[in-house]
């Protein structure tokens, strides 16, 4: 489903974020990417939705080569991915409900159908009662759950989360992790980047440990 072979990514100025990285992830796996800040976790996650392109090597997502993908094809790749960002990227000029509606605006769903899907996604993360609220009034944990709702509303086959628990207390973090696990249990491939080792050990999943852009183990 996702395969990296000999992937190198260096930024302008010579900083090498990933070097000779090779691994593959099968459909339905739950994989953690660990490592200290600057180890290349975010870069790895950004390569999958073509936010960044590999400098050399091959990144395959659902059989599509990210490195050679043409610009107009990128939106359709991203629609099949659920993205949860480190900085959340919620829109504070609209309600919780409208934030979740955003990904459905350009997929051609009729409004009624879209609204039903959005409410289902909000229900799954326990925010249905807050649908009219502005995201700014939500707690940190709730905001993170809203991000998850927005990521899954299109029913993607792959979920990518960059440090989803970084700013949460341990109870909220556990809640969020439990959500990822439940999505994984219904067949969604889940990739989570985190530096929270305690959390990883509790779940005992497959781990890709990065160290200076390479697999450590």
């Amino acid at each position, binding site marked *: 489903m996702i395969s990296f072979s000999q992937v190198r990514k260096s930024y302008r100025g010579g900083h090498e974020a990933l070097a000779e990285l090779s691994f593959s992830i099968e459909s339905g796996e739950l994989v953690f990417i660990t490592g200290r800040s600057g180890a290349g976790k975010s870069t790895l996650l950004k390569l999958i939705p073509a936010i960044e392109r590999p400098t050399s090597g091959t990144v395959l997502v659902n059989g599509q080569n990210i490195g050679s993908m043409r610009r107009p094809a990128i939106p359709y790749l991203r629609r099949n991915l659920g993205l949860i960002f480190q900085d959340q990227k919620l*829109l504070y000029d609209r309600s919780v409900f409208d934030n979740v509606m955003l990904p459905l605006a350009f997929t051609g769903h009729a409004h009624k159908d879209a609204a039903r899907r959005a409410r289902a996604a909000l229900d799954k993360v326990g925010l249905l009662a807050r649908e009219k609220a502005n995201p700014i009034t939500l707690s940190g944990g709730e905001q993170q759950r809203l991000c998850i709702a927005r990521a899954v509303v299109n029913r993607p086959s792959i979920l990518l989360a960059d440090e989803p628990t970084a700013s949460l207390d341990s109870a909220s973090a556990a809640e969020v992790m439990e959500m990822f696990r439940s999505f994984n249990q219904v067949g969604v491939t889940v990739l989570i980047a985190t530096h929270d080792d305690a959390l990883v050990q509790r779940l005992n999943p497959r781990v890709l440990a990065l160290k200076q852009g390479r697999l450590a183990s």
Partner: protein
Amino acid sequence: MSSWLRQHWQTFGLTLARLARNPLATLLNVTVIGVALALPLGGYMLLQNLGSVTRQVTGNPQVSLFLAADAGKADIAALEARLKQISGLRAVRFISREQALEGLKRSENMADVIATLQTNPLPDAFVLETGGGAAELERLERELKALPKVAHVQLDSAWVKRLETLIKLGRTTVLILATLLASGLVAVTFNTIRLQILTQKDEIEVSKLIGATDAFIRRPFFHLGLILGALGGLAALAIVYLCRFILNQSILELAQLYGSGFRLGFFGVSDCLALLAFAAFLGWLGAYMSVSRHLADIEPR
């Protein structure tokens, strides 16, 4: 197709709602565009009216054809037959030298002068009524001068040509003004859309990240440009209509002094629609240029 239409319709509604949420900014933008368009539009309206007035006044410009002194009755008859064959003449009237003298005798100032004359110094003449413009008259003049026994051709409407030239000058001025202000309109929408793109930077970035196509992201800005242009055009029409209303109050008084019912006319429906379409197009053009220039800058990192 229906989904494409629905998306456009939704975008249109959202754009209108967004404009309504910032009534002051919208009003200012529309006013700027409206005033810019109203200037050439008003000039165009005045010219159109002036044009129709000239056509009324000079509807039948007259040409006087004076015959040579030695023209006999047979010559006159032959000439009259020739004149009736010339196209572009509406009426041919013969005024003999005796008739002309009688006419002069009837006018008060001339009677004394005429009485002192021994012989009749006036030539026979034809008065011709024509229907054409300045160019047509010139052609006619050449043709008439070539006729036998014609001593002199007098165009009593050389000023028609002057007026027509003047109107042409006015047209050129309005055209230049319109071009300048149309570029101004494009610049105004360009900048408005640029600001709007900056305001919606976050939304654009997130939309790109979750799979919105470029076409989807551009669409609301095109709609915005189109709507702003059309509203501006509407404002321009309103401004010109209002000015016409005010001007007509004074024009009516003036016209009454001359015993005329003249009033400034307004544009027809098709002209109004054409203007709205043109203004909307200019708005779209500004949006297109702005979107092409600024949207690529917002690329998620």
